[in-house]
């Protein structure tokens, strides 16, 4: 099986290049994930850099751009990919080395939406309880693993990564706006206004297309706009 992998080491390379690799069929298992193949390649060439941790789509470390689409290598079966497999770092973020990108900008936007419960009531003796119906509103929101596949496939995030919050952060913003225990709705909405933070979203829906957890940031963004409209009337 053939691979074409983006290589760049800022200490030795003046510019990035694509390097071809080949794995013989006898070392490949039909059930292998892309990450397994990358680990085989790394055993052969240990200078190949990529992030990985849990290996089962929970930690969100191994987001990469494969055959023109962002995905998690650990949950992508090799047999689902056309060869030669073109593997590049996720677009829109600075490359540290090979497939490793600098996620700082992504995390900065995540922090900007205050991704935690804000409740001014005294801390209760037990948990802050919700009705099952209220809890259900968080389904499809809390599951985000912050892999960055969505934001780095969003053209609006590519053009204005420092100003547009991006789908991942906005999904989390709605996760707390939708939470019946949160009391900072006004502050959260005020923080999202302006032409950039939320309204650079043009409903392109690349985020929905690539999310490895099957989440829908575009719908979350739509819900935020809906609440903004209702509150402004």
């Amino acid at each position, binding site marked *: 099986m053939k691979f074409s992998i983006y290589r760049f080491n800022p200490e030795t390379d003046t510019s990035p290049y694509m390097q071809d690799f080949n794995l013989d069929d006898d070392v490949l298992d039909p059930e292998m994930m892309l990450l397994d193949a990358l680990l085989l390649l790394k055993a052969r060439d240990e200078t190949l850099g990529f992030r990985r941790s849990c290996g089962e789509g929970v930690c969100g470390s191994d987001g990469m751009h494969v055959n023109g689409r962002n995905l998690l290598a650990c949950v992508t079966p090799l047999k689902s990919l056309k060869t030669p497999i073109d593997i590049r770092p996720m677009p829109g973020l600075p490359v540290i080395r090979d497939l490793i990108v600098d996620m700082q900008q992504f995390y900065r936007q995540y922090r900007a939406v205050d991704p935690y419960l804000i409740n001014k009531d005294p801390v209760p003796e037990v948990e802050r309880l919700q009705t099952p119906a209220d809890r259900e509103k968080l389904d499809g929101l809390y599951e985000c693993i912050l892999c960055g596949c969505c934001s780095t496939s969003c053209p609006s995030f590519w053009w*204005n990564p420092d100003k547009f919050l991006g789908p991942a952060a906005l999904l989390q913003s709605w996760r707390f706006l939708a939470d019946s225990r949160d009391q900072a709705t006004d502050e959260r909405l005020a923080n999202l206004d302006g032409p950039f933070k939320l*309204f650079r979203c043009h409903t392109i829906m690349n985020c929905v297309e690539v999310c490895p957890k099957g989440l829908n940031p575009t719908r979350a963004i739509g819900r935020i706009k809906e609440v903004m409209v209702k509150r*402004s009337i």
Partner: protein
Amino acid sequence: MSGHTVGLKAWLWQRISAVYLALFFVYLLVQFYLYPFTEYSAWHEWIARPLVGTAFAGFILALLVHLWVGLRDIVLDYIHPLGLRLAVMITIAFILIGSGFWSMQVLILAGRAT
């Protein structure tokens, strides 16, 4: 919510103008299908009707608003140096306002001439 709802207002105006434009286009299609103009005087008589003139003025306004928000979006997305962005937006505003006045003048003259 803060009073500075710049993003929300632009987004809302884009949608409101889109709805008007869509409805007006349907009206135009129906009008031209049912009563196709064969000569200038028939068109002139139609455009000079106060209701049609008002609807047309609304169309021009909606088109200008829609254009402004759409072009502003493109400028905000793609032009990052502040000076250049400002210059392009001022140029666009100038062209749109000029086009608006010119279109309104055409409408008013068409109404008067009857």
